[in-house]
């Protein structure tokens, strides 16, 4: 039994069990450790990836459910070493402290800004329920607004 899907713009095939959460497939079978494990229950969202451009918690996403779909992880965000605008804003605002939650934060924010380039604070709160124990939230908000402004300006 094997599952095939698009991962960061390449086709991959894995013999991992169909019910194995995508998070662990990425981290253990496919060598991508940027997506993090925080709770295993879909709450903290450190495991956020994109499946067909939607932000999903990969720790509760079974492998079978992404068969034939397009998956993007934090590693796939910066193409050819060029940072995504959200990542650039994260650097400009110097957002991370410990940094463990940040890949999930960035992925959730990228997904939001793909749909909405004029997010209100309430929009950001709804789209980024991710937990940060270091408390970097103020800089996250500022970075999302900064990236939104840049994306609007570039459009």
């Amino acid at each position, binding site marked *: 039994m094997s599952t095939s899907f698009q991962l960061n713009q390449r086709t991959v095939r894995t013999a991992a069990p169909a019910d*194995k*959460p995508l998070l*662990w497939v990425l981290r*253990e079978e496919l*060598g991508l*450790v*940027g*997506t*993090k*494990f*925080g*709770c*295993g*229950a879909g*709450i*903290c969202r*450190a495991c956020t990836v994109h499946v067909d451009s939607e932000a999903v918690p990969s720790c509760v996403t079974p492998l079978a459910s992404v068969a034939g779909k397009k998956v993007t*992880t*934090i*590693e796939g*965000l*910066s193409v050819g070493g060029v*940072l995504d605008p959200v*990542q650039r804003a*994260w*650097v400009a605002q*110097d*957002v*991370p*402290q*410990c*940094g*463990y*939650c*940040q*890949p999930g934060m*960035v992925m959730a924010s990228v997904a939001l800004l793909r749909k909405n380039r004029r997010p209100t604070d309430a929009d*950001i*709160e709804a789209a*980024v*329920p*991710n*937990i*940060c*124990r*270091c*408390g*970097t*939230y*103020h*800089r*996250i*908000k500022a970075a999302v607004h900064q990236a939104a402004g840049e994306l609007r300006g570039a459009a």
Partner: protein
Amino acid sequence: MSVALTRRHFGALAAALVVPVGLAHTQVIGTEAGTASRALGAFVRIDAGGQVSFRIGQSEMGQGIHTGLCMLLAEELDVPLAAVRYVNATGPEFKHPIAYAQPPLTGEQITGGSLSTRAYWLPLRRAAASARDQLLRAGAARWSVPEGECSTADGQVVHGPTGRRLAYGALVEAASQLAPADGQLLPLKPREAFKLIGQPTRRLDTLAKVQGQATFGIDVRVPGMAWATVRHAPAFGSRVASLDDKQARKRKGFIAAVPFSDGELNNGVVVVADSYWTAKQAAAELAVEWTPTPRDHVSSVGIEQRLRARLTEGEAVSARKEGDAAKVLAQAGRKLDVTYFAPYLAHATMEPMNCTASVKDGRCELWVPTQRPDNDREVAARASGIAATAVKVNVTFLGGGFGRRGDSDYVFQAVAASKAVGRPVQLIWSREEDIAHDYYRPAMMVRHEVALSPDGELQALRSRIAGPGIWRHNRPILVNKGLDALATAGLLEGLKAPNVTVEWAETAPDANIGFWRGVGNSHNVFFTDGLVDELAQLLQVDAIAYRKRLYANPRAHAVLDRVAAMVNWQAGPPPGRHFGVAYYEAGRWGTRVAQVAEISMAGGKVRVNKVSCVVDSGLIVNPNQALAQVQGATLFGLSAALHGRIEFQDGRVQQSNFHDYPVITLRDLPDVEVTFIEGADAPGSIGEIACPPVMAAVANAVSRATGQRVRSLPLSASGLA
């Protein structure tokens, strides 16, 4: 100039196993790539290209210490910050007693106590000054000019009269042959000359972290590694009575179920498999029976009853005694007698507890996100039977520490598992096991008795605090004459009266207890400042004016006046909103903090709109990160004040994940505005200081808003959040 053909080693070189290429955050020191480097002292190597390599013995858990220490080094060495690469290192040279000047952390390699910047402020600058001095002397000798005509700037030695320059890279081989001067005798750069220290500086690890390329403990990969997870004995003190892994063995990828026992409070089974996911499922399929333990009867109700009883019954040890508070209280006409409570709290770091261990051929190697590499060595030695000196510790980034990652229970487990299965093992705790088997901030209860003169002067203060002692649990030798200073830290600190008694009534812990952000101050600032606020209310004195009266020192007044100005205290809060102030005299941390919480109540529940903070922690090395730490710690403490509570029933912790141990997210985010006052010329501590007082500030605000004093946390337990 010649390139050195040999290199000198300095102790153990710790290599991060995964070395991201082209990123500035960590790099292996050595000659694997490029030119040879020379060591100048214990911390610093420079190669012929001028690349400065810095061996850091402090763990990066988000507090920005890697960046801060690089700034100190670069400033005193006169190199651009961009020229400094660093690697985490462990070894005896990081144990030197002056690194942590205050007991009890001397003699151990440890990151904690908000002490890193203070501990290294002089030693690291002196080491850098000594290296710079060697380079300058080498330059002067190369030109045959007097040393007094030379200076350094931007990684070069400069000859003033002729303008000649030589890069450090060209001089380091010669410099390393010169006897280093005594760093204690060399002058350090005066503050006016600082180019880096005091400037808001971007973190050196930001780029890696925003790309998901920073290696945390859970990201380590060792060839041949198996994965594992743990099932702890549910009640503390229980052990494995019987283990049946018949069902688990049927699962493809299962390797072994390894029971472990390290003393009374670290018992259970490690399940080893070909992946974490397999291990997790196999763990659920084990049939384990646990031994009964007296703690099977522990409940939160019982815990509070026991603490309350100790407020009046049994022995207490004196922490502070001036005058005769008992006598004055017995005779006092005007008295206050109030009891405060703070619950058990979990750390809930984002990265769950984990350790990668390899036991092989009489050696043991660890890869671990740790605050205490030396303790890890001791624990690994105990688990493996291998001498601590044969244990190598590789320190990764930490996905949050907050004091949790110095209690190495997971190290014991990983080492035991590796030894049992004969291959490297990465042990990862589930979130459920992490929340239920923490080294908690203990639950504490205090009774305050206050005697007031007819005109409201403090005559006597007696505070008796009941609860377990963290040193007693972690390092009993540090309990001095029966007093565990962590239990009483911050209690009535800075308050003066003719008669003061502070005493500790010890109780046994109900679970493992340990160091949570702020440690004893995390409950004692709420206990102390809540009392101060009650007195201000009772005496009908302005809350800030009253604190200025009680804490009659210039630094206290400066932060209180400033926070009053920040929130326009005199005008009062906007309609429908309420202020609560807290002041924290953190003497041992060289810091003073004042916070005002501005709240509103809706449906009986609090909404925290803004927290205004004024911090005097002396000289700030990196204002960018100081701000991040104060905002972060404010939110950490606020989260606990609103929702933080670990409850017990039948000896088992009731909380298991973020749905029943909720923490602050973007949705509940108040504004947090911070002003820094630099009231001293050397750095004070920053990492923990904003966490304790915010609990008091919010509790005081709610008390004012509702007319009922808040004496118990979290607010959610009283329906206030």
